[in-house]
């Protein structure tokens, strides 16, 4: 949803502009800044300005401070001529990038905060409704995020970091992790090893992370194998070892957790689950179960361990990513770079606040109860006048849920 009035838009633009003037150092251009394409959305414009190029980090910062855009992006790719049209840019490589967004994480809370509202009377309706049931006014979509979504994306991010370090051998100093400023994270691997990979290879990386196409028997985990000749017996598989590398290890450790600590009711297929658990708590052994059972457990394990990344972003060689250190026009929050150690304690609605806390009088049309920074906003069901710190006011205005008091 966008701004309700032009006055709201120019208020946010002024807030962004004053933030950038005072925090120009926080704008964090990527490596090789001169070989990147930049793009942004200006306030009030519907078309993205693309194919921009700057010769240095300082020039990038100058442009952001000068234009104070609603959204700012940079390419994951390196180009010889980044400002040329796409066919003439001369692609030099693309960093390996990942995007984790609440959209791609199956959760049961999405129905709670994907709805439409009537700005006239504050009535909420579900997504199927076309107009307000009470006053017949137009309804607007609301994109809300809740704490569960934010924790969900963070959990995926931590899984992603683990796999990249353990399996892909990426070192911490090659990683750029950033909160998107709304409801997800992006991660960039700056490694010459991966820069030259084509789309097909990147697709294999996506499949690896999401465990798509995983066939346990190839990893030495019993599974009914299709085909006629030489079906392997359980004893033919190397015994389960919790220290095993890669997906094999991840699956064995997760199965171990299922069996020893987990909620066993989920595995109704396993009639002898008690016996299997007892054996595994002493020493993991394939022989206590059947190939079919191990397959079911492996699939469940892979589902928990797989990383929910947006598959399109990683495969797209010309993708634009939000520029770190800039403000997200959907929230007014900072696209904030995080060190690996900071990830587990990071609280987006506290740690990525960028704007000041000067009180701003607002009319809030609607809002669920939520906390941001130092304030907690109670549920608002009909247009209500309240005064909120600038960062919270901008947050609601950007989501189209509030307007400046006339």
């Amino acid at each position, binding site marked *: 949803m966008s701004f309700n009035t032009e006055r709201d838009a120019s208020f946010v633009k002024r807030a962004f502009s004053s933030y950038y003037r005072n925090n120009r150092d926080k704008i964090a251009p990527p490596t090789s800044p001169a070989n990147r394409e930049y793009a942004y959305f200006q306030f009030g414009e519907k078309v993205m300005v693309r194919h921009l190029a700057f010769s240095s980090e300082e020039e990038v910062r100058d442009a952001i401070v000068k234009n104070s855009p609603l959204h700012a992006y940079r390419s994951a790719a390196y180009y010889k001529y980044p400002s040329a049209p796409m066919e003439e840019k001369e692609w030099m490589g693309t960093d390996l990038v990942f995007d984790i967004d609440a959209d791609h994480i199956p959760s049961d809370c999405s129905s709670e905060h994907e709805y439409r509202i009537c700005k006239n009377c504050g009535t909420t309706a579900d997504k199927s409704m076309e107009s307000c049931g009470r006053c017949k006014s137009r309804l607007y979509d609301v994109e809300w995020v809740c704490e569960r979504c934010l924790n969900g994306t963070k959990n995926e991010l931590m899984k992603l970091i683990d796999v990249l370090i353990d*399996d*892909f051998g990426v070192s911490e100093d090659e990683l750029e992790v950033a909160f998107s400023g709304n409801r997800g994270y992006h991660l960039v691997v700056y490694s010459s*090893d991966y820069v030259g990979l084509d789309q097909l290879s990147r697709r294999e990386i996506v*499949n690896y992370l999401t465990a798509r196409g995983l066939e346990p028997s190839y*990893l030495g985990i019993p599974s009914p194998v299709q085909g006629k000749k030489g079906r392997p017996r359980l004893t033919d598989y190397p015994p389960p070892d919790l220290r095993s590398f890669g997906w094999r290890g991840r699956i064995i450790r997760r199965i171990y957790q299922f069996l020893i600590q987990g909620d066993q009711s989920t595995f109704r297929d396993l009639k002898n689950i008690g016996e299997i658990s007892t054996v595994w708590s002493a020493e993991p052994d394939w022989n206590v179960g059947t190939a079919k059972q191990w397959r079911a457990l492996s699939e469940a394990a892979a589902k928990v361990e797989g990383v929910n990344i947006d598959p399109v972003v990683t495969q797209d060689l010309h993708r634009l990513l939000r520029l770190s250190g800039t403000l997200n026009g959907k929230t007014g929050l900072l696209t904030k770079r995080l060190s690996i150690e900071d990830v587990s304690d990071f609280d987006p609605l506290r740690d990525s606040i960028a704007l000041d806390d000067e009180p701003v009088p607002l009319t809030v049309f609607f809002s669920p109860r939520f906390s941001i920074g130092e304030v907690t906003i109670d549920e608002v069901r009909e247009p209500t006048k309240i005064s909120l710190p600038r960062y919270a006011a901008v947050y609601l205005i950007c989501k189209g849920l509030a307007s400046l008091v006339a």
Partner: protein
Amino acid sequence: MQRVTFETLARYPFVSAGKSYISKLNLTLEELSKDYFKPFIQRAHQRIVEAIERGERSVISETTDPETEFISFPIALILVSMVGDSWLARRWALAETIRCENYLLEEEPAFVKDLLKNELSIRVEEVMDPEEKELSLRSEFKIRLPDFLKLTSHIDALEWKLVNRIAHNGWVYVTQRELVRLVREAIEDRILSRLSETRVQGSFAPLDAYVKDIKTRLTTSRGYELLVQGKAEGMWPPCMRSIKESLLKGVNVGHFGNFALASFLTNIGYSIDEVVSLYSRRSDFDLRIARYQAEHIAGLRGSRTRYTTPSCSTMKTHALCIDEGRLCPKIKNPLQYTRIMSRRANLRTRGENKQKE
């Protein structure tokens, strides 16, 4: 490589030491007419004939001595270059590659590692630590993950997918057999690039008879000439045209690409012979197998199901869709493209006819 023996050169004639050895000999084409070279030329000719006739089932010669084996390789390069047929070049390079592959399977791991590292710039290490070996399903080697991805990008089999491999610390674990299979294309590329460096044109007396013989054998063994050249290709969607072009250039389009094109052709009414003729340009072409596969897709064999062409979204998943479908009208299956285009063409001719009236 540390010590390069004639035995090594005989088995792996593409190595850089082989090239420098030959250039030090300062051979001129004239010298090849000396009797001394006759057995080498004969063996070179034999290598090529074998490739034409047997393809990748080429046999390892046990009769000749290492010197003949090695010296005949650059001569074979010259012969293939003089014939100047790109299909032959690829087929011969593949046959030579499979020969190297068969030797590599027998070598000590340390030798394999050195050869791949030094000659093909593939980052590979032997797995020495017993615990590491145990935790990686007893693999003899590990190869850098990005190198693995590049070498497997054209292999469709599930067991080669990264997700079905043991990966750790940026390495992918493989057995010797797997490693040797993995480097096939790298060796083939190396031989092909040696071929493109060898530019011998025109005629040259001591070799002319051999060149002529090879050319004759080529035409008889390749009775299958392109039947479909230019058959209403304007009506083909961009994805299928691109697969076909790759095929003609001898670029590997992967199992899925082959299947997609064959099922497309079958569905728009090409005969089995026409489908097979397209694939005859593949360097690993085997008439019997290609025929069987084409018949299978057409539903004449096996399950008797006639396969439909993969949908646009499946083509996208396999990265075969061109420009995200921007060149196509709104379609869900490549077959629709052909239908829509021929309908449009019909309308156009009808319109023109009306105008004439």
